[in-house]
């Protein structure tokens, strides 16, 4: 049996997400633990409901039986009793709540369920946007504000997609305009209008408009001129600005600041290069010193070797021998005469002594 009940529980708990349900409240019992138990019924059906203590504590008024209420609830199979009930987190008497308010609640829930408010969806803004899509009214003061602030800051290309921003046509036109943005190759999109009454801003709470904002492929800034009320469009957009002027200040850098930054980078670049050349210059000097040292050492070596060689050479010189009193005899062809047999009687020869030559002749025997 528990298997069947388990299967039922799974089927019923997963049957639908949280939904707003309208009905007449009856049999309200507040349990000593703080939970609220009651039934909700209309002409054809009724169902048991519970609001757990943690949620019940947040409810301002305790409705009397017979009050028409909206509850935000999901079905829940109570296995221990074999009973289906609605587990509610929110309860609002319909009298206390206009249809608009309820629609707002419903839309908020629907968008939240689809994750459109998730912080992880928020995209960063481009640092230097070139093409800026602007979805706004062509008639309003907002357009003038957008353009004036942009002109004073940054030479962007503003692509204005005109749309009504209040009245019956506004939702349809905004959805269309936001759809066009995806064809503009824009870097960023701003959707907005100037301030207005709560009713004037109502279109920025329309589900289709919020979904169209979420479907824009570039970061979207919502600038629905209002400081106090946050519209659902503000929550779905990637960024929010309080006014059209603030939106432009948010997305556009200031030309003068960027130019100053460029100058700073230029100066740092020059500084880096001159430091680099200084380092290299020092290295060159050091290298030169070392080179000079090496060369002069080498020259000293060579000089020593040279004088040594000179001394050896001198020792070998025949002049040294002649200086000691020896003489060299050479024949007519300059050939050195070393042996007796080379001296023929009567033949002339030359004697080389230390300071010159002496003609001589072998005596006749």
């Amino acid at each position, binding site marked *: 049996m528990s298997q069947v009940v388990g299967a039922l529980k799974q089927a019923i708990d997963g049957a639908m997400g949280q939904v707003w349900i309208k009905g007449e409240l009856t049999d309200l019992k507040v349990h000593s633990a703080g939970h609220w138990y009651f039934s909700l019924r209309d002409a054809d059906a009724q169902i048991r409901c519970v609001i757990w203590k943690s949620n019940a504590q947040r409810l301002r008024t305790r409705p009397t039986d017979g009050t028409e209420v909206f509850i935000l609830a999901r079905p829940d199979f109570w296995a221990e009793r074999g009973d289906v009930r609605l587990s509610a987190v929110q309860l609002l008497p319909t009298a206390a709540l206009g249809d608009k308010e309820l629609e707002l609640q419903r839309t908020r829930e629907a968008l939240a369920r689809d994750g459109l408010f998730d912080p992880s969806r928020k995209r960063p803004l*481009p*640092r*230097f946007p*070139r*093409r800026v*899509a602007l979805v706004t009214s*062509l008639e309003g003061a907002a*357009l*003038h504000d957008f*353009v004036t602030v*942009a*002109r004073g800051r*940054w*030479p*962007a*290309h*503003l*692509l*204005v*997609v*005109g749309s009504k921003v209040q009245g019956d046509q506004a939702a349809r036109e905004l959805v269309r305009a936001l759809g*066009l943005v995806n*064809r*503009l*190759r824009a870097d960023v999109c701003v959707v907005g209008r100037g301030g207005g009454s709560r009713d004037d801003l109502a279109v920025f709470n329309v589900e289709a408009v919020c979904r169209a904002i979420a479907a824009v492929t570039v970061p979207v800034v919502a600038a629905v001129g209002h400081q106090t009320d946050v519209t659902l469009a503000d929550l779905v957009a990637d960024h929010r600005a309080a006014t059209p002027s603030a939106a432009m200040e948010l997305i556009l850098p200031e*030309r003068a600041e*960027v*130019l100053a*930054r*460029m100058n700073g*980078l*230029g100066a*740092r*670049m*020059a*500084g*880096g*290069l001159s*430091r*680099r*050349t200084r*380092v*290299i210059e020092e290295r060159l000097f050091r290298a030169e010193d070392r080179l000079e040292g090496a060369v002069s050492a080498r020259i000293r070596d060579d000089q020593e070797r040279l004088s040594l060689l000179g001394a050896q050479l001198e020792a070998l010189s025949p002049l040294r021998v002649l200086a000691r009193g020896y003489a060299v005899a050479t024949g007519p062809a300059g050939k050195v005469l070393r042996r007796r047999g080379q001296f023929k009687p009567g033949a002339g020869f030359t004697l080389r002594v230390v300071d010159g030559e002496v003609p001589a002749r072998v005596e006749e025997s």
Partner: protein
Amino acid sequence: MSGTPGEPLRLAAALRRLEEIVRSLEAEDTDLDQGLALFEEGVGLLREARSRLETAELKVQQVLQDAAGDLRAADLDV
């Protein structure tokens, strides 16, 4: 909708590259040839980016859609 004059201020890319160049020039370990080449590249980038930024002007156009669904942009006086 394409070919808009006064276009691409590819500044983000240029500034990123400039920052890279400054970092390498400020580091101790690039040689002079490399340093000079980087410096030259940086000066070129800087000159171009600066002149574009100085001369560019805000442009405001209205996006219009014709019956066939095609888009065109017309200058808008605001």
